């Protein structure tokens, strides 16, 4: 409503309130606002204003949203259930600092298959993550690569994969091919039955890039997988042919912007009312308790 302050002044409404084209059309039809007229800008309620700010043609220029990977969606729904109640109230988890988690799937990946796929051959995959959605006010706390492997072998035992991850720097000034700036060798061990995600912490690996506000992260992964667990016997003849599902990149962030929820910040939570009077006693009207009237 025109009276609502706050978002009216700053186009800083929370991101998820930026409704896409159809909701905005519905709203503008309801408000009988001229489509895309500049003067209407001042009258727009915050929701439409956020849309309008997306450019002179507002929501029409909004490209349709790309649909996320279904596995990634399942993972994030599970993360949501662990972090908030059914009504969306954040759960108080001790020591939890993040108030934002972003999951990116690679915008492209290309697998270099060896000429003949012999046993124990090294697979190598290149993939690129675009981090444009990370804002300058979102500080990286932790980053994780989420692996999942497809194997055609219905095996009940576990698999061990030796991986070598390298970060490729694109020096666009010189046309030489990308140089490798960091590399990381690690082994992933997982039990195929559970087909769980296998998480690999790459925080120290990515920290410098995120700190430099790098928008594109180009990685190369070489891996070979053997049947069995690292303690047991993983002889080369146990090599198993697996296909790497393109990993997702998970960023745990602390959004320091005004609208984000800051745990334990005394300024915002539990502050006393500004009046000299103490907080009203239990059962006061403010708690919506009619019996508390008298």
């Amino acid at each position, binding site marked *: 409503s025109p009276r609502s302050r706050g978002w009216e002044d700053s186009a800083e409404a929370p991101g998820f309130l930026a409704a896409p084209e159809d909701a905005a059309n519905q709203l503008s039809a309801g408000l009988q606002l001229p489509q895309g007229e500049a003067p209407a800008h001042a009258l727009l309620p915050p929701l439409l204003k956020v849309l309008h700010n997306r450019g002179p043609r507002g929501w029409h220029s909004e490209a349709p949203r*790309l649909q996320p990977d279904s596995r990634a969606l399942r993972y*994030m729904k599970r993360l949501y259930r662990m972090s*908030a109640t059914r009504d969306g109230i954040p759960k108080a988890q001790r020591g939890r600092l993040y108030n934002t988690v972003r999951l990116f799937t690679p*915008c492209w990946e290309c697998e270099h298959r060896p000429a003949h796929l012999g046993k124990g051959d090294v697979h190598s995959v290149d993939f690129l993550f675009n981090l444009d959605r990370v804002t300058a006010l979102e500080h990286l706390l932790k980053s994780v690569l989420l692996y999942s492997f497809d194997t055609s072998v219905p095996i009940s035992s576990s698999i061990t994969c030796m991986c070598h991850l390298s970060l490729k720097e694109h020096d666009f000034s010189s046309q030489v091919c990308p140089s490798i700036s960091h590399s990381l060798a690690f082994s992933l061990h997982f039990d195929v039955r559970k087909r769980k995600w296998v998480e690999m912490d790459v925080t120290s690996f990515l920290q410098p890039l995120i700190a430099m506000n790098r928008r594109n992260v180009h990685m190369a992964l070489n891996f070979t997988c053997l049947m069995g667990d690292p303690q047991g016997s993983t002889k080369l003849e146990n090599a198993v042919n697996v296909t790497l599902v393109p990993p997702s990149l998970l960023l745990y962030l602390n959004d320091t912007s005004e609208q984000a929820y800051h745990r334990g910040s005394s300024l915002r939570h539990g502050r006393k009312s500004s009046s000299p009077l103490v907080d009203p006693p239990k059962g006061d009207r403010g708690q919506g308790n009619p019996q508390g009237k008298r």
Partner: protein
Amino acid sequence: ASRQRRNENPKAAPATSARNLSEYLKQFVFPQNECELHSFRLSFSQLRWDRWIIAPHRYSPQFCRGECPRALGHRYGSPVHTMVQTLIYERLDPSVPRPSCVPAAYSPLSVLTIEPDGSIVYKEYEDMIATKCTCR
């Protein structure tokens, strides 16, 4: 006074004094629709936003509605200014608005959304659910 009037003019209808008394007391009666928190639940599918807001499915922002009583006292945690505003409205200048019933405290909301580039974000937003009302 009403007894004295009765003695002077015993036929005077007692109703007039009773009416004056009720008029006088009216200013202390608490308004029936006093300022308090009201529940309101919406689902993002009603707004057709469920295509990109994955969770929560329903959201209860709550809101504050009702009249602010004259005798606020400590019940709403209102500053003294609120009572001064009421007196100005009643005695000096009715164009000055009476105090309004507004939220005094909020709680956050966790939202899971799909971004335009297809990435997925879990975010906790401040001040998304009104939890207490006050008169200001």
